[in-house]
């Protein structure tokens, strides 16, 4: 059977698009304002002799009478930025003047919206010339450059080395040793996805980073940009060409990989593992029975002292339960009367170790509750009816309708990291009203602890197509590939090939969720909420003054300046985090390895995030290449 899907963070779904867009507008808008200010200062300082004068609005100011609206609109954007910022600040300070939390919240939301509007204006102003130029791009020219890029990559045989590596990798199966069929699938899938990703990213980043610098070095670009080609068409053509080429490579590779996995794993592993489960996750909290026999919710269960805090534990034999709530379950679940599968996998923490006990597992009871109907006081009645050898006890639906409750006749014995399936009657979902459906888990074995995380238990809504799921996993690799190709081409508009290559790999590595988490951790040193001792500057003062982290510090002017510097550090650090990609948005391959379906909405959201992330880079490439003397 499977191990479990570790979901440490929520994946973005389409409903997150609004907040994400707002966040994007504010962050990108702030950078845009900085760019506007710097460019204007530069222009004022250097006069007209610089190449940058063609940037931002240099060209707009030369337009004729009939195009004057372009410049006017640009000025409108710029003029309204301070206004929107002022409104946002005003709303924010207004929100501070009330104590009612919900009023404050709504005012803060308004302030955020205004800030978003300011961001939108700033982004529009900075990208105005770019956007106007986008409209004049010719698909035929872009396609011509894309074609030539593909021909180049093929005829220059950059892909050859790649084929060799692929061949080597196909022999790697000689070295894979798995004795247990249940692990075969995961190991094979993880291996092929890793190899595909690495090969693809290495090849595509190399061809992306070397193409434009080569063009410039060998001066082939001279005959091209003296044709009526917009320079950005060069960038776009390269990106499109390499993306198409590498997409074809990826398609071939994914089919080969699938074949390879198919031939590599045993029949039994195939049967067990080649699935694409569509899970419905709920929200997890814990409840305890208090002295008045009332269930009192707590956010987490018991901590058993494990370092990894992903799971929370409930104590065996106590009045402690883990509760999953499912809001708004899809109607199709209960359309026909049937038993609905629920799968779960738990971690066990033992206080009594050794002997037979170890193998036996832990007694676990699962209860399924329709809170609209169920009354805890009727538990004894329910049990009696269930255990009576009557008609009612044989038909789970009947009992479920009557009580709004269903539980396993006898507790299940659960072993570490094994996936179990239990079923509950669909009739339980009738008449839920607006209440969430609940699944409650209790541990019956005393002195054992049962550990669980939100994603450890889910309702299995349906089985998706396995092949489709594998291709969805491939699509995730495709996202990262597009990211790398775009970054490579964008960097190489200004930097030389090797530097672009190193920079794009650096950014990619920083985007790996684990590393990003680490960077965030470092960044939290600047956050006064997380770190009571203040940022690095304040910490130095504390060190010198021999003060502990929490001791109050005298607010002299010097200290205030240092604290202010810490704030600036923090903002810079957050800016850095915003510039680095977050691969967590795109990687879903563990879903495939664990046999879970990748939801289409998540893929759509990944795509939107990718486009939003790449937009500022494309904009930078546009200005950088336009400002560049290609013959120098």
């Amino acid at each position, binding site marked *: 059977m499977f191990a479990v899907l570790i979901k440490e963070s929520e994946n973005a779904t389409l409903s997150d698009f609004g907040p994400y867009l707002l966040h994007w507008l504010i962050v990108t808008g702030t950078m845009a304002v900085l760019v506007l200010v710097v460019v*204007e200062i530069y*222009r*004022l300082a250097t006069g*007209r*002799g610089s*190449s940058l*004068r*063609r940037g931002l*609005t*240099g*060209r707009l*100011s*030369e337009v004729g009478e009939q195009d004057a609206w372009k*410049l006017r609109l*640009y*000025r409108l954007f*710029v003029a309204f930025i301070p206004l929107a910022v002022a409104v946002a600040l005003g709303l924010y300070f207004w929100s501070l003047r009330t104590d009612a939390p919900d009023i404050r919240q709504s005012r803060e939301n308004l302030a955020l919206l205004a800030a978003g509007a300011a961001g939108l204006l700033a982004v529009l102003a900075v990208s105005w010339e770019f956007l106007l130029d986008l409209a004049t791009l*010719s698909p*035929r*020219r872009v*396609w*011509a450059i894309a*074609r*030539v890029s593909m*021909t*180049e990559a093929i*005829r*220059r045989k950059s892909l050859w080395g790649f084929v060799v590596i692929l061949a080597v990798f196909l022999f790697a199966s000689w070295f894979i040793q798995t004795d247990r069929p249940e692990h075969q699938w995961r190991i094979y899938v993880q291996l092929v996805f890793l190899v595909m990703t690495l090969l693809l990213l290495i090849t595509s980043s190399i061809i992306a980073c070397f193409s434009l610098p080569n063009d410039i070095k*060998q*001066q*082939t670009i*001279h*005959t*091209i*940009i*003296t*044709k*009526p*080609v*917009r320079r950005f068409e060069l960038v776009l053509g390269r990106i499109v060409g390499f993306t198409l080429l590498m997409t074809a490579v990826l398609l071939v590779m994914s089919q080969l990989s699938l074949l390879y996995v198919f031939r590599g794993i045993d029949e039994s592993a195939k049967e067990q593992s080649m699935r694409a489960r569509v899970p419905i996750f709920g929200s997890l909290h814990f409840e305890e029975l208090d002295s008045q026999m009332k269930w009192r919710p707590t956010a987490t269960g018991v901590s058993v002292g494990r370092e990894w805090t992903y799971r929370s534990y409930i104590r065996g034999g106590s009045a402690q339960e883990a509760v999953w709530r499912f809001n708004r379950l899809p109607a199709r679940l209960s359309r026909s009367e049937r038993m609905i599968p629920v799968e779960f996998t738990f971690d066990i923490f033992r206080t009594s170790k050794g002997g037979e006990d170890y193998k036996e597992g832990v007694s676990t009871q699962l209860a399924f509750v329709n809170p609209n109907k169920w009354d805890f006081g009727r538990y004894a009645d329910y049990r009696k009816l269930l255990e009576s050898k009557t008609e009612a006890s044989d038909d789970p639906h009947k009992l479920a309708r009557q009580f709004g409750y269903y539980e396993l006749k006898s507790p299940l014995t659960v072993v570490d990291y094994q996936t179990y399936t239990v079923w509950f009657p669909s009739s339980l979902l009738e008449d839920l009203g607006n209440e969430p459906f609940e699944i409650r888990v209790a541990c019956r074995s005393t002195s054992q602890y049962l550990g669980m995380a939100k994603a450890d238990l889910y309702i299995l809504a349906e089985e998706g197509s396995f092949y489709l799921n594998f291709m969805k996993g491939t699509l995730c690799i495709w996202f990262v590939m597009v990211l790398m190709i775009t970054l490579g081409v964008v960097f190489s508009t200004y930097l030389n090939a090797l530097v672009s290559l190193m920079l794009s790999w650096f950014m990619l590595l920083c985007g790996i969720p684990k590393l990003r988490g680490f960077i965030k951790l470092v960044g939290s040193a600047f956050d006064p909420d997380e770190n009571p001792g203040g940022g690095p500057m304040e910490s130095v003062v504390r060190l010198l003054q021999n003060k502990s982290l929490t001791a109050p510090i005298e607010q002299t002017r010097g200290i205030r300046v240092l604290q202010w510097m810490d704030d600036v550090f923090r903002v810079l650090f957050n800016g850095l985090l915003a510039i680095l990609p977050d691969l967590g948005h795109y990687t879903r391959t563990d879903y495939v390895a664990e046999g879970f379906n990748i939801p289409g909405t998540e893929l759509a959201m990944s795509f939107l995030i990718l486009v939003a992330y790449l937009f500022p880079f494309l904009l930078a490439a546009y200005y950088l290449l*336009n400002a560049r*003397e*290609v*013959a*120098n």
Partner: protein
Amino acid sequence: MAEITSNSQPTASDDIIVQTRTLSKVYLDFWGRKKKQALRALTLDIRRGEVFGLLGPNGSGKTTTIKLLLGLLFPSEGEAWVFGKPGTDVSKNERIGYLPEESYLYRFLTAEETLDFYGRLFNMPADVRRQRAQELIEKVGLARDKKRQLKEYSKGMRQRIGLAQALINDPELIILDEPTSGLDPIGTRWMKNLILELKDRGKTVLMCSHRLDDVQDVCDRIAILYEGDLQELGEVDKLLEIQEQVQMRAKGLRMTDELRRDLESVVRKHGGELVEVDHPTTTLEELFLRIVEESKARPGRRYLPQREPPVVAGGKSGA
């Protein structure tokens, strides 16, 4: 927003194809330090329908001038307009054909693919592209080699395909950077005829070359650059005149001192037939060498615009 206010505007005239006003270029290194002043305050106009030659020893700034016109470089000072548009305006490129110093083309493409590619860059539909490509391949004499990749081509063949590429859009202005380099005498002859043919069809040609005999054969006007300074500008015929000498060619008489004193009357008196009385010309090579020698002796600008009245009425900025 600070607006760029140009104090000089391109002259609104259909007849001036290329215009530069105090065009200067300083090459800077990465840190913004001056590496080389390649061009200094170049002011010239090129008129519709003429063949204009840029001359100068190696490193005198000919290629730099051309790159500034095409927007491959940005001027450090002054302006350059082609068809009344600055170098960075891509729309002017619709009417320009450019043959670089060396034919920098994709060497992994065949001749046919190359022309097809450049045709696409002009947004030409497929049938027009195909037709133009065939015509040009015939014209530059590469019909037999059109399916070979350019990396197998000889220097002369690359020059030919480079020229075909420059003509793909039937341009009004053709800019040729050393068009005859790498061509054999027959190829040179062919190239010169082609330039003259383009001129006959009303095209404007701007070329630079070291081969002075070529320039003398095809150019209407020339500019001579030395170390980035304009040294001489004018019509080839006029520049090659030697003003202070008179040459006479006579038939049927023996030359004596007496004869020399009273030329015309003596010719008649002796019953000879006057064939030609003219200013003799030097060769361009001599002129070129003399200018280079003089420039070395007295550095700085030699050509002053006053010597030739400004071509354009209304050209605001002088030298």
